[in-house]
C-alpha cells in the first residue's frame, strides 16, 4: 500500500467495502489512472509540502530623517525549503524585516524565522527557522536545469487574492538578461514566462518535473501575461557564494562592451565578416579589467563562451548578453578572456571583483542609513534611497536641485572619476532651532567643504566640526566650484546641540 492511500485513510475504507482482493484491484486501477491527471509520487512527497508562506513586518528608514523609520508595513511572499533545512526566497520579500514568520503548508502555526543571507543584488535570500527542527520532516526541493524556451513550468506560491496556495501554469517565453528591479542597478539572467506571477508569489518555486527551475521574482509594468523568474544558474551562483559563510555578490570586471557589426569598424580592428567578437568601449577606472584590457580590444571568448559581434553568447540553447559569461565567476576568481588586440590574438585573465563603488547608486536594504546631526543640521550620505525619498525628477520646482544630486550620484564617477567623492554627503535637512533658523539652505545639497575640509565621506563632517577652533563653522555646498554657503556660531551650536536632540526626541546624534 503506498503512502498516498495511507495518508488519506482511503485504503481502510476500500477493504471494508470490497474485501482485500477487491480493494487491491480497485487500487491498481486508480494508480494506473492517477498519473495521467494528478502527480503521483510513490516515494517523494508533493513539492508543495516544501513551499511556505512568509509573513513579514518591516520598517523602512526615512532617509531625510535617518534616525526614524516608517510605520510598520505588513507583506507576504513565498519561499521553499532547500537542502540544509533552510528556506530560499527573494531578498525583497524580507528586506527591512523586523519580524519574519513562516507558515508551512497546511500548518496553522506561525514559525519565527531569521535571515541568514541576503543577496540584494540578485534578489535572493536564505532564511532559517528559529527552531530548525520544524522543517526536519520536510523534503527539500531539488534544483533542475535552465528550462528550455517553450517548455511548460508551474509556479507555486501564495499570491494576493486568497489565503491558500496557488498554482499557475505557463510556458517559458524567453531567456535573457533583465534589469533586477530590487537593487535597481543590476541586470542578470532572467526567464520570462506567461504563467501568472503576482504579488505574494515572490520567492516561490517555479517547477518543472517536480524540480525547481526558478524563483519567481518580478513582473514588468505594461506587459501582459509576463512574469519573470530567477533561473537556476543565478540561484546556484548565490548558493555557492554563501557556502563559505559570507555573501560577496555577483562580481564585475568593469567593462562596457559594444556590438561590433559595422563593416568599417571591423575592418579597422582587423576582423572579417565572420560574426565574431564584441568591442571594448570603455573600462571603469581602477577596475580589474582596466589592468589588462584597452578600449577597442575585441572580446572573442569569455570563460569559454564565444562572443558574437552582437555582444551576445550562446548559452544553453539561448543567445544572451555576454555579461552572463562574466557572471559565471565568483568574486575573487580569475576569468580567461580571448582577445584580438590590433588584429593579433591575445589571452588574458581578469580578476573578478565584487564591486561596491556604485553601492549607493543602487537601492540599499537592511542597513539603516548613516547620519550625523550637529546643531540641528542633518548630514547623511547621498544615495538612491535618499533621492527617492526627497523627490521625483520631472517635477519642475525640484528639478535643478534634484538634477544636481542625480548627476553626482549616477554620472560624476564615470565622467570625472578624479572629482567624484567616495561618499558624497548631503545636508538632508534642518531641525529648526534659533541657532540654525537663519540658514537659507534648507537641505538637498551636497556638502562641498566644512571649515575648509573637503567632505569625501560622512566621517569627514564629524572631523571638520570637531577640529574647528574658529568662532564659526563655515559650510560650503554644491562643489566643486562655488555654491551656497552658510555659517554657524560654533559655541552656540555646541550649546544648542543637546537641546535640539531632546526637543526632537532623537536618541543618538550619529550612526556612523
Amino acid at each position, binding site marked *: 500500500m503506498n503512502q498516498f492511500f495511507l495518508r488519506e485513510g482511503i485504503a481502510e475504507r476500500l477493504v471494508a467495502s470490497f474485501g482485500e482482493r477487491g480493494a487491491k484491484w480497485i487500487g491498481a486501477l486508480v494508480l494506473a489512472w492517477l498519473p495521467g491527471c494528478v502527480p503521483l509520487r510513490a516515494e517523494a512527497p508533493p513539492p508543495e509540502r516544501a513551499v511556505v508562506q512568509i509573513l513579514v513586518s518591516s520598517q523602512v528608514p526615512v532617509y531625510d530623517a535617518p534616525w526614524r523609520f516608517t510605520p510598520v508595513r505588513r507583506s507576504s511572499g513565498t519561499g521553499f525549503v532547500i537542502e540544509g533545512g533552510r528556506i530560499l526566497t527573494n531578498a525583497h520579500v524580507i528586506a527591512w524585516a523586523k519580524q519574519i514568520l513562516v507558515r508551512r503548508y497546511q500548518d496553522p502555526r506561525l514559525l519565527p524565522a531569521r535571515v541568514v543571507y541576503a543577496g540584494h543584488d540578485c534578489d535572493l535570500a536564505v532564511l532559517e527557522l528559529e527552531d530548525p527542527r520544524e522543517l526536519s520532516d520536510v523534503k527539500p526541493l531539488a534544483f533542475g536545469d535552465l528550462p528550455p524556451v517553450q517548455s511548460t513550468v508551474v509556479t507555486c506560491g501564495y499570491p494576493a487574492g486568497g489565503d491558500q496556495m496557488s498554482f499557475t501554469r505557463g510556458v517559458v517565453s524567453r531567456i535573457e538578461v533583465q534589469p533586477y528591479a530590487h537593487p535597481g542597478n543590476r541586470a542578470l539572467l532572467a526567464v520570462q514566462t506567461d504563467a501568472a506571477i503576482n504579488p505574494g508569489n515572490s520567492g516561490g518555486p517555479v517547477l518543472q518535473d517536480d524540480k525547481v527551475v526558478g524563483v519567481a521574482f518580478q513582473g514588468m509594468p505594461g506587459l501582459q501575461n509576463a512574469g519573470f523568474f530567477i533561473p537556476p544558474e543565478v540561484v546556484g551562483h548565490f548558493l555557492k557564494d554563501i557556502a563559505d559563510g559570507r555573501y560577496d555578490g555577483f562580481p564585475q570586471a568593469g567593462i*562596457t562592451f*559594444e*556590438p*561590433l*557589426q*559595422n*563593416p*568599417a*569598424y571591423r*575592418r*579597422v580592428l582587423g576582423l572579417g565578416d565572420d560574426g565574431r567578437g564584441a568591442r571594448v*568601449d*570603455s573600462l571603469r577606472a581602477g577596475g580589474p579589467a582596466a589592468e589588462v584590457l584597452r*578600449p577597442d580590444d575585441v572580446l572573442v571568448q569569455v570563460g569559454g563562451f564565444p562572443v558574437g*559581434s552582437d555582444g551576445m553568447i550562446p548559452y544553453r540553447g539561448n543567445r544572451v548578453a555576454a555579461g552572463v559569461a562574466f557572471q559565471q565567476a565568483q568574486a575573487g576568481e580569475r576569468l580567461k578572456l580571448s582577445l584580438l588586440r590590433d588584429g593579433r590574438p591575445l589571452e588574458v585573465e581578469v580578476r573578478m571583483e565584487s564591486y561596491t563603488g556604485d553601492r549607493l547608486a543602487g537601492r540599499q536594504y537592511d542597513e539603516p542609513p548613516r547620519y550625523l546631526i550637529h546643531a540641528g543640521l542633518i548630514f547623511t550620505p547621498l544615495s538612491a534611497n535618499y533621492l527617492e525619498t526627497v523627490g521625483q*525628477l*520631472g*517635477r*519642475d520646482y525640484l*528639478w*535643478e536641485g534634484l*538634477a*544636481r544630486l*542625480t*548627476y553626482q550620484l*549616477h*554620472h560624476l564617477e*564615470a*565622467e*570625472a572619476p578624479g572629482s567624484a567623492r567616495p561618499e558624497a554627503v548631503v545636508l538632508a535637512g534642518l531641525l529648526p532651532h534659533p541657532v540654525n533658523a*537663519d*540658514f*537659507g*539652505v534648507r537641505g538637498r545639497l551636497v556638502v562641498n567643504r566644512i571649515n575648509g575640509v573637503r567632505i569625501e565621506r560622512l566621517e569627514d563632517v564629524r572631523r571638520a566640526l570637531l577640529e574647528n577652533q574658529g*568662532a*564659526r563653522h*563655515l559650510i560650503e555646498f554644491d562643489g566643486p*566650484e*562655488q*555654491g*551656497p*554657503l*552658510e*555659517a*554657524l*556660531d560654533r559655541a552656540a551650536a555646541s550649546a544648542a546641540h543637546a537641546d535640539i536632540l531632546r526637543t526632537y526626541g532623537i536618541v543618538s546624534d550619529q550612526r556612523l
Partner: protein
Amino acid sequence: MKPVRLLLRVVVFVLASGTALLAQAGWENSVVTIEVTSKVYDAFQPWNDPTRAVRKHGLVIGPGEILTTAQNLPTHTLVRVQKGGRGRWYDARVTWWDAQTNLALLTAEAPAFWAGLRPAALAGTVARGPEFELIRWRDGNLEARRVEFGRFTVGEGVLGFAPHVQLEVATDLNGLGWCEPIVSEGRVLGLTTHSNGRVCGVLPATFIARVLAAQRAGGFTGLGYFDFTWQPGGNPELLKELGLDGPPRGAVVTQAGREKDPGAAPQARDLILEVDGFAIDSDGDYLDPDFGHLMLENLANRAHFAGERVKLKLRRDGVERTIDYVVPAARFADELVPRENFDAPPRYLVAGGLVFQPLAQPFLRGWGDEWRKYAPFRLQYYQFADAPDGRDSLVVLTGVLPDAINLGYQDAALTVLDRVNGRVIATLSDLAEALDNSSPGGVHRFEFMPGRDLQRLLLDAATLDEATRRVVEHYGLPAASRL
C-alpha cells in the same frame, strides 16, 4: 513702408478716432485678433518645417501699429489681423519683435483695416486692483471678465530668460495667455503671457511702455541680466564670517559671472549692499517705488538695458566699494544649451545617416509637455553644467537613419559629440570641417563625451559622401545639412 500709404493710413486713423486715446470703454475698437501661422520645430526630423496656426490678441497703440506678445511670431510664415472679432482677415506684417521682452509690433497695409480703430492707452502708473477686467474676443463677441490683482513678481519671460517685473492676476478663466489685455478705468495695465491654473502672468504696461519708448528712440539694446549667482544675506553668522557686523542685509555672491575683473564685476563672497542706489535687504530684495518689494534681479532692467552700467555697492574683504557693472545682454547664444534659437531655421547635419543637431532646449522639448521628466537626463543636465573644455555649445547625435554604412549603430543616439577625427566639436560647422579629413584606417572617428554612454563609432570615409547622398534620397531629406 511707402510714405503715401503711411500718410493715407494716418489720415484714416485720425478721421476714425478723432482723438489719440481711448478715454473709456470701447475696447472692440482697440483690441484685434491676430492669426499667426508659424513653423514648428520637429525635434527628430529638423529638416521638416511643419506649421501651426494660433489666434491671439493685439492692441492698437498708434497709427498703423499693433502691439502684441512675441510668442509664435519669431518663426511666422503668415500673420493676419481681424477687427471686431469677426469678418475679413487682413494681411499683417511684423515690424519688430523681441524674445526677451516678449513684445512685438505689427502693422497692416490695408487702410480698410484701420477704419474705426482707435489706439488704446497704456497705463503710465501701476494699479493694484483689487480687481481689473480682462478683455478678449470669444466667438465673435467681446468679453470683459473680472480678474483679481495677485502680486508683482520678478521672473523670466515666457520666451526669454532675462528677469523682469511681471504682474500675476488670479482668475477662474481657462485658456488665457493669448495676449488678452488687462484693463482698468479705460487704460491697459498689461498683456497676458501665460496661465497656470488660477494664476495668469501679465506683462505690466509700464514695462512695455519703457521698452517701446526705447525701441522707438532707437535706444533699445535688449534686456540684460545679472550673470553672477547670489544668495540672500539673511544669516548673520555668515555675514560675520564675511567681515560684516550689524543686522542681516544684502546678497552674498556665490559664483562670479563671465567678467572676471574684480574691479568690474562682483566676485564670489562679495556682499552686495546696494544696486543702482537701492538698498538690498536680507532676502535679496529692494523696495521698488512702483511695485513694492522685488527681487534685486529686476534692477538689471528696471532703469537700464543691456550694455549699460549699473552701480553696485559691495562689501569685499571687509571693505566697502562701488563698482560699475556692465549689464550683459541676455542672448540665447550665450547659453551652453540655448533655450531658443530664433535666428535661423533649425540646424542639422546628416553624415552617413547619423543625424547631428546643436544641443538646445527646443530639442529637449521634443519629449513633450513633460520633457523634464522624459527627455534624457544627461542631455538635460548640460543646462546646469559648465561647458566641457570651455566650449560654448554642443552637438548631439539625435538619431540614425539606417543605411548600410551605419550598420550596427542603429541604437546609437542621444549622446554628445566630443571629437571627430581628433577635432573638438562645438558646432555643426566644426563637424562639417572635421569630416573634410579622416582618421587612420580610412574611417571617420566619432568620439562622444566621457561617461556611461557609447564612447565612439567609426564610419567608412571613402563611401561617406555617397552614403549620405543615398540617405538623403532614400529618406526624402531636402538637403544633407542646414548649417
